[in-house]
């Protein structure tokens, strides 16, 4: 709701009080008036809209980076990454796989504090999808106590495909799953996993 007031070159806008209170704190900390800050935000959103962008997209990008940082990831260069993976795999396959497996275990550890396994797996899947920019397809299917993961990327080298499989196996083990299906060829990973307890009882 917008109302005309008697103030020259100013109108009023009605917004959520909690937001305005928070913005008031931010403005104060940065030496702005609330009027200046609110106008700057509106200006930025209008300009962003002109180039098909929004503060919402920016906030999402910031959150993704922050989550990646907390999860122990680093933004790297795909081509260099593949070269290094090839080199390590060629030198000592088992050691390289162990390194990736351990990284998967560590990464998945942050999702295991949640008692609801379905929610944990869903969060794991969400973050993994957000971080793995180099795989056009990252498919997760969860039915009862089974999980099917399919990763497809024409750019993966053979070594990288096997190492990334080790990463997924480490993560799934940490989440309490055991692999029942492993089909891996260059650029394509297909993993079927089942909850450990269910696996033991069948």
């Amino acid at each position, binding site marked *: 709701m*917008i*109302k005309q*007031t008697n103030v020259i070159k*100013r*109108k*009023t*806008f*009605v*917004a*959520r*009080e*909690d*937001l*305005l*209170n928070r*913005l008031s704190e*931010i403005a104060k900390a940065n030496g702005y008036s609330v*009027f200046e800050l*609110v*106008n*700057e*935000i*509106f200006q*930025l*959103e*209008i300009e962003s*809209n002109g180039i098909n*962008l*929004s*503060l*919402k997209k*920016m*906030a999402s*990008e*910031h959150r993704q*980076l*922050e989550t990646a940082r907390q999860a*122990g990831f*680093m*933004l*790297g*260069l*795909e*081509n*260099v*990454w593949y*070269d*290094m993976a090839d*080199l*390590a795999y060629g*030198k000592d396959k088992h050691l*390289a796989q162990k*390194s990736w497996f351990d*990284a998967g275990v*560590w990464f998945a550890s942050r999702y295991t504090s949640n008692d609801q396994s379905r929610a944990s797996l869903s969060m794991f899947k969400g973050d993994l999808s957000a*971080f*793995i*920019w*180099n795989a056009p397809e990252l498919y997760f299917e969860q039915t009862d106590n089974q999980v099917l993961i399919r990763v497809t990327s024409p750019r993966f080298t053979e070594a990288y495909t096997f190492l990334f499989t080790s*990463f997924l196996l480490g993560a799934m083990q940490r989440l309490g799953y055991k692999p029942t299906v492993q089909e891996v060829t260059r650029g394509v990973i297909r993993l079927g996993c089942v909850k450990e307890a269910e696996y033991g009882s069948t």
Partner: protein
Amino acid sequence: MVQRREKKLVYVNPDLLEEAAKASQSRGETVTKFLEEALAQAVKVTAVGYDLEQSGEFFEVMQAQRILGGTFVPLAVLEYLTELACRESKEQLGAVWFESGKWHGKYLKERFSDSTRALERFLWASRWDLSEVQIKRSDKDIRIRCVSTVLTEEATDHLAQFVRGIMEGIGYHTIKSEVLKGMIVQDFKQ
């Protein structure tokens, strides 16, 4: 039960409200929703420690990184691979980082009006293992300093090759390059 939030009045420049009305139409939203969403998202952006003015620039840099083949990698694995790869073929890997940097530099030059500023934003946003990134400009000279308390000697060397590649891709010549574990100081001339 839905909790009703209290509302409050805030002053706004009327010209902006007119522009916002047009922008909101293009998104198929009411102007109130458009502006309130902007305020909510601005609070989220600042909550994670980012400056609003730099956010748009930051977003563009990250989009460029996606186009250039950036991908997240587990840090522990990266450290292991760097150490192993350096033991096996240090020079070959250094050349890969340099060439990759050159390619990035050429793209930054095409994509951004101020490519060295874009480089600074890129390093600041993506290399959170760096505690300081400083780019000093004077006339046609540029000095880049990167400091990290966690980088290994090998990783520092790779980063130095990468930065040098970017600067050469942008169109600068390397005048001086000092690389110590966790510290890079490089001078360039246009």
